[in-house]
């Protein structure tokens, strides 16, 4: 299968009053057609900024893609003009955001918000009959009951789960080949989360798009992803297929994250804690960013950042332990 999205050495930074903050620091990503790539990490690790860079939706005032290429279908979209980008955004690559309340416009009926994308990319005039029918069809596809009525309702009349379904309908309205889902179920209750995850899985099967699934929840990753990248402080620290990552995690950070969840823990066992906290992007430690929190730290860890190294086919980690051939 072909590579749909190829990101190389992406560096995204923000100018803040306290100085330049590098949020994404040299990230490489490959998403193959029809695959689900899970991106996992804690807040501030750069997972959302990576997705916003791909969509070219960084805040204009201070966010810049400082270096790197983002190749979509063989074309470097970093170089595209805003008008050319608009052709891709929402049409070829679509996105679902975390907060379905803030992502929808409260003063427009949901039908108009879906129809907008159809007008721009599929020249179905807004408020035309075909446009409306297509909106209803999309609402039905995402499992919304009474679609003929809901199409004229406003976001505040819908529950959180329904709003997220509307978001998905908007995102899928133009049959994107790549869907970026940024924490799409984080704001939802567990039973509703299960519904929405199931819906995304079904629609993927039906429409065959590739998905970049961003979340902090390893449980959701285990459920949804084919391949996983784990990010920490703006860099990828581990990359593998989902099975390998969960059965044989090799980076101390991934191991720590997995051990922090009490899901499989006996009640009298102590949780494993990663000590300390994520370093401030304004004050990164020299060497490996995880070194101050790591239990397997070597002297080398404080001096230089290790490379992302293959340790077996399709499994790479960024760790001095791997560089030095130690087994951890």
């Amino acid at each position, binding site marked *: 299968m072909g590579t749909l999205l190829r990101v190389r050495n992406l560096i995204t930074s923000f100018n803040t009053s306290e100085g330049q903050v590098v949020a994404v620091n040299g990230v490489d990503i490959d998403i193959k057609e029809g695959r689900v790539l899970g991106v996992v990490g*804690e*807040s501030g690790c750069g997972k959302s900024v990576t997705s916003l860079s791909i969509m070219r939706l960084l805040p204009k005032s201070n966010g810049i893609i400082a270096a790197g290429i983002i190749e979509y279908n063989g074309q470097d979209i970093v170089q595209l003009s805003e008008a050319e980008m608009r052709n891709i955004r929402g049409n070829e690559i679509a996105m679902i955001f975390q907060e379905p309340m803030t992502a929808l416009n409260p003063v427009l009926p949901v039908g108009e918000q879906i129809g907008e994308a159809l007008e721009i990319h599929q020249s179905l005039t807004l408020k035309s009959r075909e446009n409306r029918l297509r909106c209803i069809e999309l609402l039905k596809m995402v499992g919304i009951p009474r679609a003929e009525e809901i199409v004229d309702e406003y976001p505040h009349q819908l*529950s959180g*789960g*329904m709003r997220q379904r509307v978001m998905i309908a908007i995102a899928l309205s133009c049959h994107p080949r790549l869907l970026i889902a940024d924490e799409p179920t984080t704001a939802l*209750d*567990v*039973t*509703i*989360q*299960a*519904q929405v*995850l*199931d819906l995304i899985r079904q629609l993927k099967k039906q429409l065959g798009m590739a998905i970049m699934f961003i979340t*902090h*929840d*390893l*449980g*959701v*990753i*285990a*459920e949804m992803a084919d391949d996983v990248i784990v990010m920490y402080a703006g860099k990828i620290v581990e990359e593998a297929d*989902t*099975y390998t*990552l*969960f*059965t044989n995690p090799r980076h101390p950070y991934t191991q*720590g*994250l*997995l*051990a*922090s*969840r*009490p*899901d*499989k*823990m006996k*009640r009298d066992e*102590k*949780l*494993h*804690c*990663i*000590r300390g*906290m*994520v370093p401030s992007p304004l004050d990164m430690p020299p060497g490996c960013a995880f070194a101050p929190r790591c239990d397997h730290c070597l002297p080398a860890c404080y001096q230089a950042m290790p490379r992302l190294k293959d340790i077996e086919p399709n499994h790479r980690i960024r760790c001095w332990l791997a560089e030095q051939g130690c087994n951890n």
Partner: protein
Amino acid sequence: MNRKLVEVRNLKKYFPIRGGVFSKKIGDVKAVDDITFDIREGEIFGLVGESGCGKSTTGRTILNLCPPTAGSVVFAGQTIFDVAENTYINKAKMQKLRRNMQIIFQDPFASLDPRMSVGAIISEGLVKHKLATRREALERAKELLELCGIRYDNVMKYPHEFSGGQRQRISIARSLALNPQFIIGDEPIAALDVSIQAQVLTLLQDLKEKMNLTYLFISHDLGVIRYFCDRIAVMYLGSFVEVGTSEELFNNPLNPYTQVLLSAMPVADIRDRRKRIILQGDVPDPANPPSGCKFHTRCPYAQKRCSQDEPVEKRISETHQVRCHLVD
């Protein structure tokens, strides 16, 4: 068995809905609808359910932070209120009792006064209850900070200088200042990153041992609830549908809602991609709950009588109770 610390009997809390020109009462939101339970000394009692099921309101009503509609709460032998007997604790006594019962809130960004130093926040209770002079209270604040894993020399800093996890530690330190017996944690780790969640959970465990605490732990996260709590109540639309020890509830869930919640929980284990029970629809409006068993509208096993009769509580064992027509 330890003695009962908190005894809740037939507790109800309705919020009136007002409408019309004269803001007449036109209905009730039945946030808490007839719940009965005990918490024994040294126990961790968990409340789990989806948003809007009344778990936070239960906590607040027990602490007498909002007036009850019906029922009684007895804390350490002292009646806080008994609506049927029309007895309510007087203000002075309640104030004294408050030393023994504290609460930790979910959002550490909203629950700390941004204009007070950490020292002032933690020592406020001591000064208010005239248990210490300002100087003594500040010394105590330093001890408490250290106990909660923050260096004592941070005592003059302000909340904005801390990360979310650190702020939650400060909230915990504040709740401990008056040497309480009983602490309610209202989603105390929900807003934190995975690795920080593990840290705070471990801190709560350690403090419980050190200070002989009893917790009411409110959470929507079943993985955390299972691991952390001794006994658990599952709430749906203001009622308990099942109560049991962690083992009983997770190894032998009897109410379909408990089963659904367990099956919806994403688990970070690739070998555990289970078949899920996916619920249809959303939680019904608590102002207009369904007749009979409140869960019957979404229950995969609902029968005719479920929509007619309210199920009564069935005792499976000394500790395990369930409300469901299908359990014999």
